[in-house]
C-alpha cells in the first residue's frame, strides 16, 4: 500500500534544498494561506489535526499552543528544538539537511500563530554544517520577502535566528534548552511556571520539535481535518522514523502509522530485514529511553495482536509488555547482539548527560553504569541484578526533569525481558570477559506471557 507522504514527499527532487526549487514545487503556499487566516484559526487547525509533539513526548501541539500566555506588552517567542540527541534518532537532521525550507516555512506559520516576532532554532552544536544550511535557507527566505518586516504585505514581522548548542543531551529538555539559550548551563527548571507562561527571558515561550513544526505546513495546506484522516485513532498524520542497528536499509522513513512493526522491519520498502541471514532478537523502537522489547513482544502484543507502528499499539501492555513511540529512533538488534553490553552503553550515556542537579539521577546513573560494567566484564554478582533494579526504581519519578526516567527505563526493561542474559554473564565470568555474548534464544518464537 502506498504511504501518503506529507513531509518527505519531495525529498528526492534535485535542488529542493534551495529556495527556487522549493518554491517551484509549491513551497511557502502555507504562509500565503495562513496570512488569510487569524492566528487563532491556525491554532484551531492544528488542534483539529491531532498533531502530537514529534520530539518524543507526544503531547498535543494545538493544546500546547493554546496555553501560551498573552500578557500586554510582553513579547512571546517560538523556539524550535533541533537539539536532536536521543540515541537512535536522526530524523530532524535529515529534514534540516535536505529540506531546510520546509522547517523555515513551518516556523513562519507557527510564529504567526503564536505571535512570535523573534524565533530561534536551537540546534545541537555537533550539527555544525547544518547551521550553514539553515542560515542559507533563512537568508533566501528573507531575500524573497518571507522573513523580516511586514512579510508579503501581511503586517507581520518575523526574524529567525539559529543558536548552536555545544554538546549536551539535556538541552533537548525544553527548560534546559531555554537556560542554554540564555547562555547558561543546561539545568532544567522546576515547573511550574511552564515555559508557556515564563520561558526564555521570563517571556511566554513555546518550544516545539523540528518535525512537529514542519508538520504545520501540510496541516495548513490540506486543513486540520484532512491531516487527521491520515493515520489511525489518536495517531494522526505521518511520523518520521529513523531506523538503525542491524538492518539492511538504515535511514529515515516517513510512515503513516497504519503499518505493522513486522512490515516496517522486513519489507524492502523500509528496513529490508536483518543482514547476513540473522534473526531479529530485539528492538528499541522509539529512541534509547523507551523500553527494549524481545522479538516476540515486539511483533505481537501480549494479547496476540499484530503490533503496529503507532503511539497506541507500541505502548499496548504498558511497560510490562509494551514500549513507546518516543522520538521514532528505531534500533534493531540481531541475534548476536548482547543486551547487557548495549544497556551498559546507554547507562554510560545517561551518566555522561546527567546535568547533576538531582541526586537520584546524578548518583544513580553513575552507580548503574558501574554495576553494569561489572556484570558485562564478568565481575558481577547475582545480587547486582536486583541492586540495579532497585536503583532504577528509585531514580524514576524522583527528578526535576524526565532524564531520570529516561535513564531508568532502558535498564528496567533490559532486566525485565532479558534477565537470563544478565545471569549468564554472572555465571560465566570468563566467557563474559572474552567475547561479546548475546543469548540468541530471544530471537526464537516464544510463548507470550502477559
Amino acid at each position, binding site marked *: 500500500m502506498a504511504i501518503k507522504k506529507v513531509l518527505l514527499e519531495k525529498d528526492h527532487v534535485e535542488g529542493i534544498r534551495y529556495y527556487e526549487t522549493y518554491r517551484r514545487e509549491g513551497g511557502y503556499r502555507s504562509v500565503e494561506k495562513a496570512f488569510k487566516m487569524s492566528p487563532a484559526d491556525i491554532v484551531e487547525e492544528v488542534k483539529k489535526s491531532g498533531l502530537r509533539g514529534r520530539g518524543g513526548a507526544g503531547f498535543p501541539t494545538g493544546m500546547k499552543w493554546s496555553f501560551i500566555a498573552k500578557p500586554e506588552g510582553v*513579547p512571546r517567542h517560538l523556539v524550535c528544538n533541533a537539539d*536532536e*540527541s*536521543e*540515541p*537512535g*534518532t*536522526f530524523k530532524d*537532521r535529515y529534514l534540516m539537511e535536505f529540506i531546510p525550507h520546509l522547517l523555515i516555512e513551518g516556523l513562519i506559520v507557527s510564529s504567526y500563530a503564536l505571535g512570535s516576532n*523573534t524565533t*530561534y532554532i536551537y540546534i*545541537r*552544536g*555537533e*550539527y*555544525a*554544517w547544518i547551521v550553514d544550511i539553515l542560515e542559507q535557507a533563512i537568508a533566501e527566505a528573507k531575500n524573497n520577502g518571507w522573513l523580516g518586516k511586514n512579510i508579503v504585505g501581511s503586517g507581520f514581522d518575523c526574524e529567525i*535566528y539559529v*543558536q*548552536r*548548542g*555545544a*554538546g*549536551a*543531551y539535556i538541552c533537548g529538555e525544553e527548560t534546559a534548552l531555554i537556560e*542554554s*539559550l*540564555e*547562555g*547558561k*548551563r*543546561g539545568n532544567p527548571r522546576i515547573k511550574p511556571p511552564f515555559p508557556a507562561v515564563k520561558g526564555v*527571558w521570563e517571556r511566554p515561550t513555546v518550544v516545539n520539535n523540528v518535525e512537529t513544526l514542519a508538520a504545520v505546513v501540510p496541516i495548513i495546506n490540506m486543513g486540520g481535518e484532512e491531516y487527521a484522516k491520515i493515520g489511525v485513532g489518536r495517531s494522526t498524520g505521518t511520523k518520521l522514523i*529513523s*531506523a*538503525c*542497528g*542491524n538492518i539492511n536499509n*538504515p*535511514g*529515515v522513513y516517513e510512515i503513516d502509522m497504519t503499518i505493522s512493526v513486522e512490515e516496517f522491519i522486513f519489507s524492502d520498502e523500509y528496513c529490508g530485514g536483518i543482514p547476513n541471514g540473522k534473526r531479529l532478537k530485539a528492538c*528499541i523502537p522509539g529512541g*534509547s529511553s523507551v523500553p527494549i522489547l524481545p522479538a516476540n513482544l515486539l511483533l505481537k502484543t501480549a494479547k496476540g495482536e499484530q503490533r503496529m507502528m503507532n503511539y497506541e499499539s507500541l505502548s499496548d501492555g504498558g511497560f510490562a509488555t509494551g514500549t513507546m513511540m518516543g522520538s521514532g*529512533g528505531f*534500533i534493531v*538488534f540481531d541475534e548476536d*547482539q548482547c543486551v547487557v*553490553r*548495549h544497556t551498559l*552503553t*546507554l547507562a*554510560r*550515556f545517561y551518566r*555522561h*548527560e546527567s*546535568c547533576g542537579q538531582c541526586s537520584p539521577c546524578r548518583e544513580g546513573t553513575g552507580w548503574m553504569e558501574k554495576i553494569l560494567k561489572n556484570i558485562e566484564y564478568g565481575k558481577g554478582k547475582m545480587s547486582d541484578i536486583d541492586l540495579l533494579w532497585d536503583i532504577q526504581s528509585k531514580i524514576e519519578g524522583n527528578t526535576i526533569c524526565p532524564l531520570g526516567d529516561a535513564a531508568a527505563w532502558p535498564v528496567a526493561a533490559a532486566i525485565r525481558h532479558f534477565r537470563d542474559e544478565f545471569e549468564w554473564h554472572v555465571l560465566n565470568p570468563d566467557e563474559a570477559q572474552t567475547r*561479546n555474548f548475546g543469548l540468541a534464544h530471544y530471537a526464537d518464537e516464544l510463548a507470550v506471557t502477559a
Partner: protein
Amino acid sequence: MVKFSEEKLKEVSELISHYPEGKQKSALLPLLHIAQEEFGNWLDVPVMDYVAELLNIEPIEVYEVATFYSMYNLKPVGKYMFEVCQTGPCMLRGSDDIIAYIEEKLGIKPGETTPDGMFTLKTVECLGACGYAPMMQLGKHYREHLTKEKVDRLIEECRTNANSLN
C-alpha cells in the same frame, strides 16, 4: 594577547543583536565556539576572561558554561580530533572495533594526543548519525560508515593536509 580581529568583532556584535537588549549573555555559547576556533581549538582561562569582558558578564559565568558542555576543550588538543561515537546504535555496528583500531594505529588512548600534536582521540556519546554507523566527527563534518580502510585513509588525508599547510 587575546583579542578578536575587527571582522570577528563585527560577527560578535551581529550575534549579540539576535537577543533583546541586556540579554547579551545569550550569545555566550556561540561566542565560545568562535573563540575556540580562533584561539587554538581550546579555551584557556585568558580566552574565557576575554569572552566575559566582551559580554559584560563575570568570568565565573563563562567558566560555568565552558565546563558544562562537551564541545569546549579545556586543555590543548591535537590539530585533528577524532571524536568517535561509542553509544549503543554505533556499538551494534562495530564502533568498539573502530575505536580499538584507531588506538592501535595512533598509539593513543581516548583522551590522549599523539606526541607530535597531530591527533587527539576522543570517545563521544551519540551524535545523531546512528543509521550511518560507525562514525566520527572530524572538525565541522561527520565521517560515516567507518571501516578500518576508511580510518587509514582519514589518517593519511589529515597528514597530507597538515603537510600542505606547512
